[in-house]
């Protein structure tokens, strides 16, 4: 493929930022159109790469490498302590890129509900997209970290300026939790860089996995780094007890931002654990497998129990996210092919489902100014189509066969039952609870006595159809034809399995 393909893909939203600079800030519809159009190049390019890969072309030709920073004397140190600008993808990160591009475009559509300062909003939104795309395309840890931090600042502003009542508190709690997470991650990255002289993921994986005599680093040191890394990504995922910021953000930020937040940003945590935790420290990861599975079950049950008692639908969804991220951990803890595949499936599937549900929250919040379940009762009478999509989304989320949620939950549990049947049995309770809390919430909203007048309230219309249809479409597609994901993942999974000796 052509020159700088990935760079163009990652940085294409910047074009939109530049274009927006020249649009007067009062022209609402122009700004929204430009913001939406700016997400399209990345979408087209990532889909093209995806289909080319599916038709058999190699991903290596997408790799890019340019010299970037050199510390110390290049004549003396050579390649050591140089940081290169390296982009590249494997099957896993390509899927994440496609997911990011799709959700960004849909979230840009959902941004039509933004009420003020559209220009600033879309500039930050597009910058966030650059960060997210970059995270999945980065081939070295320092570059990864830079993109990771680039997502932090726009998100802080997007939450703090365009959110609901307690938005600033939510923004600060987001900033501090994630700031601490990044800080821990930065320590890990710098220790690896200082000790090995490289930050290239492939090189690091090779150096550390072939270092059986612990010449580069002691076993304890590696374990320490892995635990630090789990904490760093655990904040992002989030793993109980590091989750309180995430509930706040889900409730306070505007739905279009939460679509990206729940859909992609949380997934960076899972991506990091799989790619770096498992990839670079496979031995130590195996030692921690039980702990990770236990944390997964705790997440699953804790989230589910709390989701059960919420009256605000956004809170239900927030705790449901925590619960569903538990399934990712369960899959990873199983440490076999089914488990890991289930975890990756869950990452993608939950990204789509969460985005769909939060989009629908945006739809009825816009019309009814509430997301309180009792106040919404009888929605099916006033907005039958929205209520229908809501029910479908909930079904996908609770893992109804034929939808993506089922595939991922099934595989994750299949993996865990093989390794730790007792734990898996306890975890399976969570699945039942999921069905209970989701049905309770959705039925409470859709049916029941109408608590309000629905006169003058319109149902889904115009552009609102697009995100709903697209998301449901992909969810069902993965559900009935999982090969869309399994095939591209094959080689990436093999590499991971080779690392953990499976």
């Amino acid at each position, binding site marked *: 493929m052509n020159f700088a393909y990935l760079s163009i893909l990652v940085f294409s939203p910047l074009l939109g930022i530049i274009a927006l600079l020249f649009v007067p800030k009062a022209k609402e519809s122009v700004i929204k159109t430009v913001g939406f159009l700016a997400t399209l190049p990345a979408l087209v390019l990532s889909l093209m790469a995806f289909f080319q890969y599916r038709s058999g072309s190699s991903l290596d030709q997408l790799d890019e490498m340019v*010299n*970037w*920073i*050199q*510390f*110390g*004397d*290049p004549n*003396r140190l050579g390649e050591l*302590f140089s940081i290169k600008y390296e982009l590249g993808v494997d099957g896993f990160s390509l899927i994440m890129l496609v997911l990011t591009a799709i959700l960004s475009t849909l979230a840009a559509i959902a941004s039509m509900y933004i009420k003020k300062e559209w220009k*600033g909003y879309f500039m930050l939104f597009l910058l966030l997209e650059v960060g997210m795309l970059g995270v999945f395309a980065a081939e070295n840890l*320092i570059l990864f*970290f*830079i*993109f990771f*931090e*680039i997502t*932090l*600042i726009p998100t*802080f*502003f997007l939450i*703090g*300026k365009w959110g609901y009542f307690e938005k*600033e508190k939510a923004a*600060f709690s987001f*900033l*501090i939790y994630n*700031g*601490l997470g990044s*800080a*821990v991650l*930065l*320590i890990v990255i*710098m*220790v690896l*860089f*200082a*000790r090995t002289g490289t930050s290239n993921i492939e090189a690091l994986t090779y150096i550390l996995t072939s270092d059986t005599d612990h010449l580069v680093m002691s076993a304890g040191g590696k374990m320490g780094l892995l635990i630090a890394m789990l904490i760093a990504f655990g904040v992002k995922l989030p793993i109980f007890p590091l989750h309180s910021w995430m509930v706040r953000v889900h409730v306070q930020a505007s739905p279009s931002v939460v679509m990206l937040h729940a859909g992609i940003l949380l997934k960076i945590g899972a991506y990091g654990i799989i790619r770096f935790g498992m990839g670079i420290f496979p031995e130590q990861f195996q030692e921690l497998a039980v702990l990770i599975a236990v944390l997964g079950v705790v997440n699953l049950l804790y989230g589910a129990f709390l989701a059960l008692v919420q009256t605000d639908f956004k809170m239900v969804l927030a705790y449901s996210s925590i619960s569903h991220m538990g399934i990712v951990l369960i899959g990873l803890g199983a440490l076999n092919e089914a488990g890991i595949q289930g975890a990756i499936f869950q990452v993608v599937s939950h990204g789509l489902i969460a985005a769909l549900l939060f989009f629908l929250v945006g739809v009825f919040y816009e019309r009814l100014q509430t997301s309180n379940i009792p106040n919404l009762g009888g929605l099916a009478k006033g907005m039958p189509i929205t209520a229908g999509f809501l029910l479908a989304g909930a079904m996908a989320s609770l893992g109804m066969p034929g939808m993506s949620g089922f595939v991922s939950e099934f595989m994750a549990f299949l993996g865990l039952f093989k390794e730790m049947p007792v734990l898996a049995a306890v975890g399976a309770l969570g699945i039942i609870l999921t069905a209970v809390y989701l049905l309770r919430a959705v039925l409470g909203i859709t049916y029941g006595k109408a608590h309000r007048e629905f006169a003058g309230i319109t149902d889904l219309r115009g552009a609102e159809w697009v995100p709903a249809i697209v998301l449901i479409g992909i969810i069902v597609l993965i559900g009935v034809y999982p090969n869309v994901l399994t095939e591209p993942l094959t080689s990436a999974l093999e590499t991971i399995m080779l690392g953990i000796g499976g």
Partner: protein
Amino acid sequence: MDLETLLSFKWSIMTPEFIILGVITLLSLLDLFMAKSVNRKLLGWLGLAGILGALVALLTLMGNSPEAILYDTFRLDSFAIAFKLLLLIGSALVFLIAISYEPKEGLTEYRGEFYYLFLAALLGAMMMSSSGDLITLFIGLELLSISSYILAGIRKKHSGSNESAMKYVVNGGISTSITIFGMSYVYGLTGTTNLLDMARHVITLADSQHIYLLGLAFFMIFVGLSFKVATAPFHMWAPDVYQGAPTPVTAFLSVVSKTAGFILIVRILMVIFYNIPTEGPGSMPLLIKVQDYIAFLAAATMIIGNVVALRQKNIKRLFAYSSIAQAGYLLVVVASMSAFLFDTLWFYLGAYLFMNLGAFAIIQLITQKTGSEDIAEFAGLYRKAPILAIAMAVFILSLAGIPGTAGFIGKLNIFMGALVVEPAHYVLVSIMIATTVVSYFYYFGVMVQMFFRPAANDEVKFKLPAGLGVVIGVCVFATILFGVAPNVALDFLQGNFNQFSDFFQ
């Protein structure tokens, strides 16, 4: 000394200093003879031209082998050139800020002095970075300090300015005397004031009593010098002085004066104390033995600076604590003593120069416009002057060490230096990163004011003076350039200064 010896010196290596000295003389004479009615800002532009001239002269001296004149008291090695570059660029930017400085009660009477005192302070700092002898080192330090004392108090009718100058003199006097007391020990034990001679002498020391005395001398010198860079235990002056002093002076103290302090610390520490063996010739140097002590002070400085900054409501006081914290980060470089020490120190000081001076330019503009130094005055800046708000955001993000800015690359350098040595400074790095996260609170507090809060009154229109506009433009450009393409600076450093290998020659 007869005329022949005088002429035999290669005076050309002092060209930058001579230019500054000449401009000082010229400005003071002009100030004396010019009619009262003539606007003294003219002198400011002349001074700026002088600094730029010195900068050009310094660039032409680059790449030569190290030379020393005046019996080795003045030396021009790569270290001196590299850091003088920072001093001159910093001073040029400070000058631009100073030219646009318009305090409420006016500065007409002293405006001339205001400019040439800056130059005198700069001359002191430049002498320090080039000195190969304790005497010239100390004279440079005093020239810098005394000029700064007067500058801090130049608003004679402003009580805050007076308080600031008073506190600065008293604290400065104490710390200077501690430093010189420590220096006297070293002189007493070696019998010379020349730094390289001292190094040659101490390297053979074997008497443990002498080593003990030198250890004592180290502590005194280091503690005394911590005043100049505003680190613990001598940081207490900074908030009061920064708050009371005129904003350009605050900017000068926080950037140029701090850079000079680090130059001094590195000169003395690395030349003398790095060569003192602790247990007979060839054993571990004293400096490595006391590394933990420096690390402790660095940690204390970072914690104090960042934590106390959380409670500040006055923007200049906030930046005083912020600059204490930044000095703590720089001390981490000194404490880790890696092979990258000079590179890292230079890069971070350079990055700090741009981000901090840019921020001070905006602070001066806002405080002057509103007449108050409360952080709340930044409210709604994004609405009133979006470009200004975004520029300030760039500086703040850089100070907080967010990727994409020079500050991040600087911090990356520091972490690497601290972790690459054996044993690695894990604790120190962790403290540095943790306190950086703490700093997000107050840095983003300013951001919240600028972007989230509505303005108290909308009618205030900003007229950006040309000088400040240039400073802000240059600083934004440099902060982003060194963040996105740091190799521009790192390659320059690698290509022109021979890895600072001539430092000990």
